[in-house]
């Protein structure tokens, strides 16, 4: 049973007012992430923010805190007819044991119609869940993430920080994506390769415990593929379709160019040639009837790849801050001091800022 944390009404309402409250329910926020153009979630701004996955900190602060997230589930009840009781069940607890949501109150103590609960959950995990509203199990009416369970049912899903379990891509897709992103990043030079080997291998036991607890090396360039796997499941779900279509087309193109060669054995030159052709928006063998512009996909892929390599590791890329550490070591000033002392500003155990908790 997950720990229930004290509910901070103000914190929850800060998300409700901006993203949920509205009079107009036209689907102005559906830019491709919902296959059904009339999906009611298309009316909600940044619906992916729910449930809210945030940093956890115990009141007095403890060395163990960084292993957890605070996850806040919000049920938007109707003001006129609020449900009498709403609970949440999920793979983070016993499925027969719903954790009750509490009414979210405004500053005057009046119920707002929203219900919410905050749970303390481990980082690095993906979970499925449902709300039980007046005894009826329903998917989260806000969260766009859903997944089909083995029994065929579709449930709501979320993942916590540093999750490495693939949620968007299959193994063959991950392999191709791994090679594509490798070609984009600045880590293919010999110096960079040496650095990364040293960085991963030399991390002491303590570092490994705190920084790679969930995201070990992943056999990917700084975890970028994992970052993209999560990004297209959540914030940029509207781009999942671009990846699904283009990875299939790329597989077709490269298979025909390297007949009889296993996917994992395709040489570097095959990717370089493909990449250049994508940049020219002219890839022989590419079925433009399925996806019009290979260049457009390349543009998305480059932005995602760069962002994944250098964004906060909580998003699943930049594993153990390897991307930042590469910049830190590579770029030095005249006196030899690093030109990127990133640890100075960031929270422990990732960084060393004693004042900032992340």
């Amino acid at each position, binding site marked *: 049973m997950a720990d229930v944390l*004290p509910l*901070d009404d*103000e*914190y929850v*309402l*800060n*998300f*409700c*007012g*901006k993203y949920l*409250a*509205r009079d*107009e329910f036209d689907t*102005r*926020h559906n*830019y491709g992430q919902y296959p059904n153009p009339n999906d009611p979630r298309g009316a909600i*701004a940044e619906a992916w923010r729910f449930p809210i996955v945030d*940093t*956890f*900190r115990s*009141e007095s602060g403890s060395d163990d805190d960084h292993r957890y997230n*605070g996850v806040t589930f919000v049920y938007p009840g109707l003001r006129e007819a609020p449900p009498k009781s709403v609970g949440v069940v999920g793979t983070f607890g016993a499925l027969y044991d719903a954790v009750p949501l509490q009414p979210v109150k405004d*500053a005057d103590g009046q119920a*707002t*119609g*929203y219900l919410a609960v905050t749970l303390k959950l481990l980082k690095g995990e993906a979970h499925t869940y449902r709300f039980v509203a007046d005894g009826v199990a329903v998917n989260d009416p806000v969260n766009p993430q859903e997944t089909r369970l083995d029994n065929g049912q579709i449930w709501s899903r979320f993942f916590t920080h540093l999750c490495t379990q693939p949620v968007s891509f299959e193994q063959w897709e991950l392999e191709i994506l791994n090679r594509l992103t490798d*070609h*984009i990043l*600045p880590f*293919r*030079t010999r110096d960079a390769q040496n650095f990364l080997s040293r960085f991963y291998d030399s991390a002491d036991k303590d570092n490994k415990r705190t920084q790679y607890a969930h995201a070990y090396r992943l056999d990917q360039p700084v975890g970028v593929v994992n970052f993209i796997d999560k990004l297209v499941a959540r*914030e*940029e779900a*509207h*781009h999942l379709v671009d990846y699904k279509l283009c990875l299939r087309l790329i597989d077709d193109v490269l298979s025909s160019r390297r007949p009889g060669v296993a996917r994992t054995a395709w040489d570097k030159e095959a990717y370089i040639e493909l990449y250049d052709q994508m*940049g020219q928006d002219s890839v022989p063998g590419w079925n433009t009837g399925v996806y019009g512009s290979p*260049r457009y996909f390349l*543009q998305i892929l*480059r*932005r995602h790849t*760069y*962002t994944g390599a250098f*964004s*906060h590791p909580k998003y699943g890329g930049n594993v153990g801050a390897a991307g*930042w550490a590469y910049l830190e070591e590579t*770029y030095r*000033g005249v006196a030899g*001091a*690093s030109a*990127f*002392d990133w640890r*100075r*500003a*960031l*929270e422990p155990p990732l960084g060393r*800022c004693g*004042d*900032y*908790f*992340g």
Partner: protein
Amino acid sequence: MAEDFDAVIIGSGAGGAPIAWTLARAGKRVLILEKGPLLRPQRQRRNQLSDFKRDEIFATGTEKRIKVAGMANFNGSYYSSHVEPDLNDEPHVYNKNGTDFATIEGYTAQVVGGGTQLYGGVSLRFTPRDLALRSFNEGRTLQADGNGDVKREARDWPVSYDELEPWYCAAETLIGVNGTVANQGKRFSKDCYMKPLQPNPISKHVEQGMDALGFARYRTPLAVITEDHEPSGRKVPADPETAKTAYVNRYGDPLGLKSSTWVSLLAPIETKLTLRPNSVVTHLEAEGAAVRRVHYRDAAGNKKVAAGKIVVVACSAIESIRLLKLSALLDPNFDARIHASGLLGKYFLTHAFGGASAQVSAPERYDKSQTLDSDWATDACASDAFLDERGLWAGGAIYNNTSDRALPISLARTHGSQDLDTIWNAFVNDTSMTGQKLVDFLDGNFGRGLSVSFMANQVPLPTNRIELHPSVKDKWGRPVAYIEKRWHEHDVYLMNVFADRCAEILRRGRVTDGLGSGGVYMAENALARCANHILGGARFGTDPKDSVLDRDNRAWEFENLYVTDGAFMPTSGGANPTLTIQANAFRVGDTLKGRV
């Protein structure tokens, strides 16, 4: 049933918070309605976690798509910060040569503290000249003013610098600003600054360049505390230098050292006032000359009503004017009064701005992540001699930026594009930059970028204006703001002169690699861009036929309606506007103490 207050203040940023502070401390019953959330620094939360993070994806988020029907950039990408409005819920629309575009430019931030949560903190005073440009330009010969527009449209403020000066001191003291007085081109009755932190070493090039040009320089005043701040009870870390972080401009501060109006003014008196975040005001309702009711929605969308003896509108210029015009749509009496002069929405202003940027040469490279937003500033290009020599109507401030391109993602997403509408574009389009070429890009730019910016007066024109859009509605079904803006030929001339001086500072400071310079008029979306300095549209003055507000920021035909964000400015000033908005709001607040 309307809740009753002495004052209802709409907006909690630079224009609203000083008035709330003044009235609440005088024992008045104050209600602040703020559209955005109440995001707190660490020390104000039980679990010591802030809603602001040092996280590049907070400043410029993941991709969203514009889905506003009828826009030329329909389906275009945009990337907003976590406190900027969602463009599909509440777009600003601007007209570019007859075609409508939705834009993220012109929003400050929707959050308690408003734009002061997100800004770089540059807290310059305007010069005495800035407030008297009509009289200054009488009899002068100007370049690039063929139609005589500049002289015809220039206005003096109804408040002089000397009258405003004590309120500048009050703002600097109460907000918490660091900087230096010497070499500024304005009179200071006292030095209210905290001690500045050590400049980033890359700024020595700017120091040399300004010195070589004979430009007297001073440390850029920044709204970041560097010493314990007695008025707000904020304390600095044991080593104040640790306040320097590139997570500054476009980031709320989890430590509360950046002096937003929330941490500096409102939080210390949180129990003395009523603050309703996540509350959007839909319209004002008047009876005769008195605004009687303020209609708003709470965080859950419930309809609520509040009443105040006075009502202060301070939602930042575009949204304030929109709110007044929306109220006018619903009531002919309100309409007749607020549009009495016909000027509401007209003379919308931003700044003539731009600058120069280059990279320091190998082997030099600096850790730009240890920085505040700017180190050095000069008023040399605001002197009468400078203006006379070049036939310019008004001057501006020049200062260097130190936090730009300081973090790895910002380096890429601002590559070739500095503004919010075109962010990421150049990087995304340059598909050849990959592998070794990406290494080369990082080699050339990481820790090397140095920029010098100018912020100068824009010519006020009645055709630059804010209206309601005829068809686009926000998520509450209300018409959105419609912006029309053009650059005058004198603005273009002025921007060229200033951009050239910025480039010369870099040249004389021996920074010439990749040197480029220019004014905002050259940008792809030049008509939308405004540096988030959104001013004018409800200017104050002494003549009811020539202004919307009187000298106390009261709407002429109302007895209790005030507008105190940047909308009141008849000219935009030659500097970032926040400190002047704050100073003026302290001045108005002091007057209002006697009226409720």
